[in-house]
């Protein structure tokens, strides 16, 4: 498992006492305003636990929230497809990966923005498998060449087949999620084995903090029953689905998060729920675009999730820009660094452009480079006797050259070196073609793809996965 602890003084947007104040506001919202839950089983669970209900409306007492927060696990381990621990969510750890379901791809070979295909998706998955600094996979694109109703099954099958890295699963309807996890069970060797060594975390997108739809609630109940890890992600847009200020947006969204925490623990004490480490930002009220890189998106929610001590899913590495350019690199670097320093744990959306509508494999490679730099920049400094090397310093004296010492020759590779960022002389850079960052990133993508062979599935497992996709096709009448 990667040593993924972020060193240094913690960076936090919320000062002492601020998180408690947001929590208090969220508790007040749940008791006074309440919520509307469009799945009767969820309402019944809460009523049985002492919540006041009226039809699909619920008001949740603070004692119930306090109990649920103490019952929810503080850490979640995700495994790789082979059953090895890969990701430890909890404390100041940080992992990075792509986002899911882009409607367009910015083709790194032609520069065209077009509809992605299954072939693009498979290439993207292979790239993430090959990139050394990315830790998990999401499904990158919605492929336009399969039936939209069951695209999620094709996406999951491609991820299982194309990488051994842990998977964050996005599905449309509960049936798609169940099919996706059936594929995972086939890989793990049954539900019990998958529960013990989960290599899939399911993403649940919640309509609004206080208005939770049938589909998302059914997913939560199903996953909590089985003890499979899931990400419970209400999104509140300041200025539209929430008040415009950071504090209010955060408090309202937190109320929606806490509903998920309570429900999950009522279904199964210890059910592994992961809460958002992003939010508090607003819709861009000039363009009506939901921005991915606003300065308020990264810090406050991460700090709050740390205050709760619950595992979190964060957002960084995307860009609101349209191209693999200076804006995209700057936004990816700024958001990744801020989230890493805050301790953002499972961080998605590397490779996103156009506020999540377009994905780029070249931008993914740029993000991999940035993530590697950040890991080096936040690693604790080794000050062992060996590393401090005062004996070497004394042996070589005041004028010595350290270039040829064993100490240097043994350890020079420990320093971070770029794979993409250009450090050569001007003439050196020219002689290699004088390429821009975007051109070098595109070349790196092609080089990695031609050299990398993802580890194949066992034939019987591959057949089982294929059968699940075919069954979904038959059910959809295809």
């Amino acid at each position, binding site marked *: 498992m990667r040593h993924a602890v972020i060193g240094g003084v913690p960076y936090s947007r919320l000062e002492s006492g601020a998180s408690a104040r947001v929590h208090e506001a969220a508790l007040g919202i749940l008791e006074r305003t309440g919520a509307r839950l*469009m799945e009767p089983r969820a309402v019944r669970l809460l009523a049985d636990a002492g919540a006041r209900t009226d039809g699909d409306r619920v008001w949740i007492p603070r004692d119930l929230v306090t109990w649920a927060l103490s019952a929810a696990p503080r850490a979640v381990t995700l495994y790789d497809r082979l059953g090895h621990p890969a990701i430890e969510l909890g404390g100041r750890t940080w992992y990075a990966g792509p986002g899911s*379901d882009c*409607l367009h791809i910015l083709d790194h070979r032609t520069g065209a923005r077009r509809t992605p295909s299954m072939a693009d998706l498979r290439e993207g998955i292979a790239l993430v498998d090959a990139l050394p600094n990315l830790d998990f996979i999401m499904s990158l694109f*919605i492929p336009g060449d399969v039936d*939209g*109703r069951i695209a999620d099954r094709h996406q999951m099958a491609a991820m299982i087949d194309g990488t051994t890295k842990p998977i964050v699963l996005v599905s*449309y*309807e509960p049936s798609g999620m169940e099919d996706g996890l059936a594929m995972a069970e086939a890989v793990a060797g049954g539900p019990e084995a998958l529960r013990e060594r989960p290599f899939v975390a399911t993403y649940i997108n919640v*309509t609004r903090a206080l*208005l939770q*739809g049938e589909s998302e609630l059914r997913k939560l109940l199903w996953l909590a029953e089985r003890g499979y890890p899931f990400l419970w992600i209400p999104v509140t847009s300041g*200025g*539209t*689905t929430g008040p415009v200020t950071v504090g209010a947006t955060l408090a309202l969204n937190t109320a929606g998060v806490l509903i998920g925490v309570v429900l999950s623990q009522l279904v199964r004490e210890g059910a592994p729920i992961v809460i958002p480490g992003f939010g508090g930002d607003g819709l861009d*009220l*000039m*363009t*009506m675009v939901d921005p991915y890189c606003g300065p308020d998106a990264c810090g406050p929610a991460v700090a709050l999730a740390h205050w709760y001590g619950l595992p979190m899913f964060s957002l960084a590495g995307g860009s609101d820009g349209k191209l693999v350019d200076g804006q995209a690199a700057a936004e990816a670097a700024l958001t990744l660094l801020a989230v890493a320093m805050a301790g953002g744990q499972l961080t998605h959306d590397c490779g996103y452009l156009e506020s999540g509508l377009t994905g780029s494999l070249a931008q993914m490679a740029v993000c991999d480079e940035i993530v590697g730099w950040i890991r080096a920049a936040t690693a604790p400094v080794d000050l062992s006797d060996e590393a401090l090397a005062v004996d070497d310093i004394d042996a070589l004296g005041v004028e010595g050259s350290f270039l040829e010492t064993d100490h240097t020759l043994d350890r020079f590779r420990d320093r971070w070196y770029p794979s993409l960022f250009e450090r050569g002389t001007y003439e050196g850079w020219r002689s290699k073609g004088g390429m821009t960052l975007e051109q070098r990133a595109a070349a790196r993508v092609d080089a990695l793809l031609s050299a990398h062979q993802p580890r194949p599935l066992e034939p019987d497992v591959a057949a089982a996965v294929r059968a699940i996709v075919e069954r979904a096709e038959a059910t959809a009448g295809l």
Partner: protein
Amino acid sequence: MYEDLLQAMRASIVDGDQDAAAEAARAGLEAGMDPLVAIDEGYVAGLSHVGSCFSTGEMYLPDMMLAARAMKAALAVLEPAMAERSAVRSIRGRVVIGTVKGDIHEIGKNLVGTMLSASGFEVHDLGVDVPVETFVAKAREVGADIVGVSALLTTTMTGQRAVVQALSDAGMRPGVKVIVGGAPVTRAWAEEIGADGYSEDAVGAVALATRLMDAAVEPAKS
């Protein structure tokens, strides 16, 4: 005539100033201005200006909300005078709007409704999670010219196709026009499902609805 007053009316909308809008309306009535002229040449002109500034990224969405609020304040003053004169603001068209079945997102749809009604359309908002049959029934009931179908999710946008189909099956097409919108919706999608138009935003939706109404009356003229 009344150019200073009309200018004040337009400015009150652009500034989003309710008090100034009501004040200008009162001044207009005192000066003997026709309330319909005040609305069309004063306030609606101001609103169009705000709309186009929003489209070009020179104003914020809340500027449009403030403008609509100021418009309402002016209408509150003008409407009693219109009733006295039995003047009726002409309706530019009847529009039924709603978010498709299975989708409970409403902000974009509401915005389109606000802009259309402020621009003189009669808007019937069916809300969210609207079954296909309800779109058809309401369109028939009110004699809709246009049905606007919203969807935010790639999974629910197929509902837009179902509405187009159901209106055809009911024999109401092509008389009733269908316009579609929502984050994942594109011009190509609108064409694919046989809708009559698509717009990126609420301001564009007003322009689109106006265009469709104009096109609908053209054959009668020729």
